[in-house]
């Protein structure tokens, strides 16, 4: 078997007071793969990324990135990874090109080499016109793009993106997705992407790991995960509001009830989408007028719901401790 880009074996990160932010995680990400690490806030995504990027030692277990152990070969790991962590870590008083100049210099690129690399990356992320503006005046999307460009300075083989589109508008999100797809597609970069957005994982990831309370509860391609859930759901809204209880009764003949809009009813179809015609006929037979009828293919949220008993939206746990930012969490991490 070829060497994995990222591997984790029984990875654990425990903080003082027994909080297990990451609990026995097993991972294998292949070279060139985009791996989506999906979960709500506080599920353990960022703590995992901190361990894989050598910023936080695991409490137990081990991990290898690019074939190097994250604990004993930290320097080698850092040489081959790029990371854009949860907050776009930029200096508001420096310009985009000054950031690039600093980053290239820290990676040992001098003079012309550093300048050309900086210009190339700023152009690639569409910031060449804003290169001489202070970052404090950048929009959220621009900051994220600059953050990504900085992570790419030393041509990393493996890229960690920790919630890269959180808080971005739709346009900025799409632009970042395109760049990630290009990196993985054209340049063969392995991307480990954490996200709390289902759509992002669905669009970008070759495989998805769903993390809940520090544990991976499901893993596979988005298609396979959805196929595992299997059945689509149908949601119907009656013309007359008073028909809603009867509509619910009819629909439950075809499967278990699932969440729906307040004015409608929904069930997961036991017999798959072939049952849609029967549903319509049954409602017609009961003389229930249908205002709206929608067939929903299974989503990753359905997968999350099936695996955790909760919908991804609103499933946020307590915020993960951030030992590199919060004093209390750091003391805990040191004591643990």
């Amino acid at each position, binding site marked *: 078997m070829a060497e994995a880009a990222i591997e984790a074996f029984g990875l654990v990160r425990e903080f003082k007071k027994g909080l297990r932010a990451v609990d026995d995680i097993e991972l294998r990400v292949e070279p060139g793969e985009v791996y989506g690490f999906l979960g709500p806030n506080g599920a353990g995504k960022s703590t995992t990324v901190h361990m894989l990027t050598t910023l936080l030692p695991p409490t137990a277990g081990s991990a290898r990135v690019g074939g190097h152990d994250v604990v004993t070969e930290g320097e080698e790991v850092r040489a081959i990874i790029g990371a854009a962590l949860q907050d776009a870590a*930029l200096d508001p008083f420096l310009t985009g090109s*000054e950031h690039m100049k600093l980053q290239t*210099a820290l990676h040992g690129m001098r003079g012309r080499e550093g300048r050309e690399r900086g210009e190339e990356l700023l152009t690639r992320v569409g910031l060449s016109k804003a290169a001489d503006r202070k970052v404090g005046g950048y929009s959220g999307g621009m900051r994220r793009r600059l953050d990504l460009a*900085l992570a790419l300075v030393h041509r990393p083989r493996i890229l960690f993106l920790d919630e890269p589109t959180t808080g971005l508008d739709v346009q900025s999100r799409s632009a970042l997705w395109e760049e990630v797809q290009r990196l993985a597609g054209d340049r063969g970069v392995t991307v480990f992407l954490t996200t709390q957005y289902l759509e992002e994982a669905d669009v970008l990831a070759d495989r998805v790991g769903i993390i809940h309370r520090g544990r991976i509860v499901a893993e596979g391609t988005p298609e396979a995960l959805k196929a595992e859930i299997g059945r689509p759901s149908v949601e119907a809204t009656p013309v007359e509001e008073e028909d809603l209880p009867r509509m619910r009764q009819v629909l439950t003949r075809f499967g278990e009830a699932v969440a729906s809009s307040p004015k409608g009813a929904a069930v997961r179809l036991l017999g798959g989408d072939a049952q849609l015609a029967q549903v319509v006929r049954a409602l017609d037979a009961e003389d229930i007028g249908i205002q709206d009828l929608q067939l929903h293919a299974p989503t990753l949220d359905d997968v999350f719901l099936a695996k955790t008993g909760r919908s991804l939206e609103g499933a946020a746990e307590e915020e993960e401790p951030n030992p*590199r930012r919060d004093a209390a969490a750091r003391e805990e991490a040191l004591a643990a």
Partner: protein
Amino acid sequence: MSRSTVALQVGMLARRSVVRTLRQPAMVIPALTFPLLLLAINSSGLDSATRLPGFPSDSYFEFALAIAFVQGALFSANSAGTNVSNDVETGFLNRLSLTPLRRVALLLGQLAGILALGLIQAVTFLGVGLVFGAGIKAGVGGALVIVAMSLLISLAFGCIGAFVALRTGSGEAVQGTFPLFFAALFLSSMSLPRNLIESDWFRTIADWNPVSYMLEGIRSLVITGWDGEALALGFACAGTLALLALAATASALRTRMART
């Protein structure tokens, strides 16, 4: 990693530290104006103190000029601490941790920023002093030594600010220490020579307060000339404090930038 690469890192981080400090008027302007304001208030309000028997100068402005240098240096603690805590809070330090950066390069770069602000302050205070009639009894050489001692004091207090920021990761904690620095200044020989302080407890504190000796070192060059003992004590206090603060900052940086 070659020495030239480390030198390049130090140079770039020093440049960043200086540039970001100078681009924050809210940090630079108070650091220049507040010490001058205090100097103006003190020298106009306490001028009659020069008539006290044994007062070492007939110009309170000349006597008080040293306060500006030390008070200016206290602002270094605030600016260095605020800059470092921003880096912790924004995650910028994490970005640096993921590069092949040597910690010593980060520390030296940060110190360069402190010294740049300190130099601007020292030259400004010296210029204002000369414009308003203060004579530097130790001459041009003395003026240069004033700048040097002022930079050393800035370094000491700047490192304390950076240490607090690295230990706590909090800008609020840095701001919280600011009044303590001012208490240290006010409980020194700031307003009167120690031998003329009548209150026993105040004089005892001033005797033990290293800030007194920093002030007296600079003051001696302005109003006395070359006073070896005052200079030695001033440099010893500032140097020792700088060394201790530097060691503490280096240790805090090692913990804060822990990586495997």
